[in-house]
């Protein structure tokens, strides 16, 4: 007799339902249908094509059999070291927007509030992109979401300084944190946004983050994602982005720690003449698993997309890049590029890449390239011949490999923070 495996999805659902947060903005019908979807599909495992290299079910079964939801309260002193000097710092703790810890500054055209405070007309926009019947993790978030962050830039406003959203989780034992944010950039607005992810508790965290981003006509959104959640954290970050005519969206993801980091970055280019740029860098060691998953959906003509992802896998870590470019029938004159470069530093490390093109329009230029290898021995020899020790020569080369992406961070203090952690990880 084969013993039937315990259903981890059900176990998780039961535990979460016990002390589910009560939020006003999520309609009950939505919550019920999300739970139903989860019960039916379950948390994805490696049999699921999109999670082939990221077996979430196994991770949850191993690490999150019992969930306590024992969240810690945080004070200003806890948050201070996470802040960025030249930005407006906003804080979301364990899934809930924390106004007391956030910096208050009156900036023309900027609205920041919690999702519960949304007006009826604003509520309609929610879940229009992150649909809970498309992905189990979005469903999980919809069912148990905290009172997340709403950020809106009114039409025509240029925000003079970066906005820094600190998503921080903290628990004293196993917690599951479902964080949600909604970012709305009005037409012709321009803003730089930094989203940082931390875990400062003593317990393990399964962080399930969903963000919907909407970029209006002729607007520009420059995003930086900074992930440094530490060894106790297992996180799935889903970004559902929709960009409009003449708009420009860019995102640079820096993954520096976290036992499991899965990034789902889905961008819909919904109208003509818009641009999307996705970049990412990770360095992993120990038994870390880093999985970057992107989907660029070209729906209309004359758009451009660029992707550049780099990774360095050390020890027994696993790095994955899975990128898909989808060019629909109407998306003529599309230019889409995708590149993934990886370095393996150890025989026990694994790199998986799966760059996909799915193209239904003929007048397009699409290409992808991926390469995986070791440090160039000739370059290493060149440096050694000039009296640089092997260890520092190797570090120099790896830094040069990563520099291209680190340079994309336009905020000096954030760049410094990334560089410092990157060098430490080398």
């Amino acid at each position: 007799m084969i013993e039937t495996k315990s259903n981890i999805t059900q176990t998780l659902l039961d535990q979460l339902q016990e002390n589910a947060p009560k939020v006003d903005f999520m309609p009950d019908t939505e919550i019920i249908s999300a739970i139903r979807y989860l019960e039916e599909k379950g948390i994805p495992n490696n049999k699921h094509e999109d999670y082939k290299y990221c077996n979430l079910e196994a991770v949850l079964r191993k690490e999150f059999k019992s969930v306590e939801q024992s969240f810690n309260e945080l004070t200003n002193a806890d948050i201070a070291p996470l802040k960025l000097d030249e930005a407006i710092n906003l804080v979301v703790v364990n899934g809930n927007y924390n106004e007391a810890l956030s910096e208050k500054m009156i900036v023309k055209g900027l609205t920041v509030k919690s999702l519960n405070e949304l007006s009826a007309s604003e509520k309609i926009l929610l879940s229009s992109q992150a649909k809970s019947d498309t992905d189990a993790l979005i469903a999980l978030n919809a069912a148990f979401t905290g009172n997340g962050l709403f950020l809106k830039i009114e039409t025509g406003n240029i925000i003079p300084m970066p906005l820094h959203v600190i998503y921080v989780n903290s628990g004293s034992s196993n917690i599951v944190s479902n964080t949600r944010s909604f970012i709305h950039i009005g037409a012709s607005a321009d803003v730089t946004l930094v989203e940082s992810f931390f875990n400062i508790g003593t317990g393990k965290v399964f962080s399930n983050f969903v963000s919907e981003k909407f970029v209006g006509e002729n607007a520009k959104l420059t995003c930086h994602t900074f992930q440094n959640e530490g060894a106790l954290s297992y996180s799935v970050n889903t970004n559902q982005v929709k960009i409009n005519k003449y708009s420009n969206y860019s995102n640079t993801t820096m993954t520096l720690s976290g036992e499991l980091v899965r990034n789902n970055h889905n961008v819909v280019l919904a109208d003509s003449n818009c641009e999307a740029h996705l970049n990412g860098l990770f360095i992993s060691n120990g038994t870390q698993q880093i999985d970057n998953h992107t989907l660029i959906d070209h729906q209309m003509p004359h758009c451009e997309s660029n992707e550049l992802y780099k990774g360095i896998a050390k020890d027994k870590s696993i790095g994955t890049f899975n990128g898909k470019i989808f060019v629909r029938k109407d998306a003529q004159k599309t230019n889409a590029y995708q590149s993934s470069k990886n370095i393996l530093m150890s025989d026990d490390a694994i790199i998986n890449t799966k760059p996909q093109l799915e193209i239904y329009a003929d007048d397009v230029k699409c290409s992808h390239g991926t390469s995986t290898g070791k440090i160039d021995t000739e370059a290493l020899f060149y440096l050694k011949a000039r009296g640089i020790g092997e260890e520092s020569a190797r570090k120099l080369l790896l830094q040069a490999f990563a520099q291209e992406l680190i340079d994309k961070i336009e905020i000096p203090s954030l760049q410094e923070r990334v560089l410092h952690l990157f060098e430490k990880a080398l």
Partner: protein
Amino acid sequence: MANEILEEHIQNEYKWGFTTNIDTDEAPKGLNEDIIRFISAKKNEPEWMLEFRLKAFRNWQNMIEPTWAHVSYKKPDFQDIIYYSAPKPKKELASLDEVDPELLKTFEKLGISLEEQKRLSGVQSNIAVDIVFDSVSVKTTFKETLAEKGIIFCSFSEAVQDHPELVKKYMGMAVPPTDNFYAALNSAVFTDGSFCYIPKGVRSPMELSTYFRINASGTGQFERTLIIADEDSYVSYLEGCTAPQRDENQLHAAVVEIITHKNAEVKYSTVQNWYPGDKDGKGGIFNFVTKRGICLEDNSKISWTQVETGSAVTWKYPSVILKGNNSVGEFYSVAVTNNYQQADTGTKMIHIGKNTRSTIISKGISAGFSNNSYRGLVQIKKGASNARNFSQCDSLLMGDKCGAHTFPYIEIKDKSAIVEHEATTSKIGEDQLFYCKQRGIDNEKAIGLIVNGYCKEVLNKLPMEFAVEAQKLLAISLEGSVG
């Protein structure tokens, strides 16, 4: 202008759609253990062979049809297929003159007349042809010349009778009967195919060739090819396929296995031109083929070259398992789809041995309403140090109603590996066309020139005899599909 040419091309009927009238000796429709026993008995097979078939069949019953490929089609009804049909047996053919004249005519229409082969036999470079005509190998030519060298080249059923020890040892080594749904089906019901054994130290003096042809209506073609290259041997093997025009979809689920020993090399070339269905996507062949080679020992090499222009639905991934140290795998492919054709093709390169190398060059061309996908896996296992892979997949789109897709999987578990993959999708450049036209080359010829140039890397790898046919096929498939 361009549309007119396209229209004209689309209206071209399948040139090779004709049926040969030969009485066939058929099994009743359907599939069960009795049918398998019938096939086995009909072919007078030993007990172990029947066991192999039944084991595969029992496995197959528990398997489900794969749905992951980027194709959609009406699933074949496996109980509505005739699993065995043989042309009337004619014994002891001493010369080609004794071959059924109807059959000879068929081959003539295909442009591979046996007479020509025979005539050529006095001259320099030759091709030995093992013809598979609806599941039963009718005639193997050049057998004597090959026999002198010790090369065994015969139909699969003959091999089962005459060389059971070789068949028993190698069959199922590269493609186990449980490998996948169609391989299991083939292992259960295969009727015939080709068998080839190159002994130690022998270089095959000629290119070996099989022409597959599906004839009787409603018969599935379940061929099995087994090629074994012993130490220090070399062979170049050609496979060509055409099928006559039929309205209902016909299923083809073949298995090809290649095994190379130390320092051996096998080059396998395919030109596949089965009936692709008419311009509305009606009819056509389902081509679900499992092809795999194992570089069993050190310094061996397997090279797959394919030109795919036919079939309604193609599902085919010729693969190489690089087990021996310093072994080499190659995959060169041109896949052309037009009208409502669908192709999901590519390769798998599994690096196990040290210093193994593999190269993948795939060129896809889609026109009309077709969908053309490349799906490939490059896997570097732990311990496969200094493995090297280079992959390039290019797609060319002609018209705005077709699709071109790439699904490469790259899994690397060794730090000394160097793996590169690049893919591009584009259409024929206006500037390229302009350049040609400016030099007095008309639109039609310019397209031919550019497409041929685009595929050159692959076509160059084909043996001379095949390259000519392949170029002709490309020209027919694509003439004026672009403007």
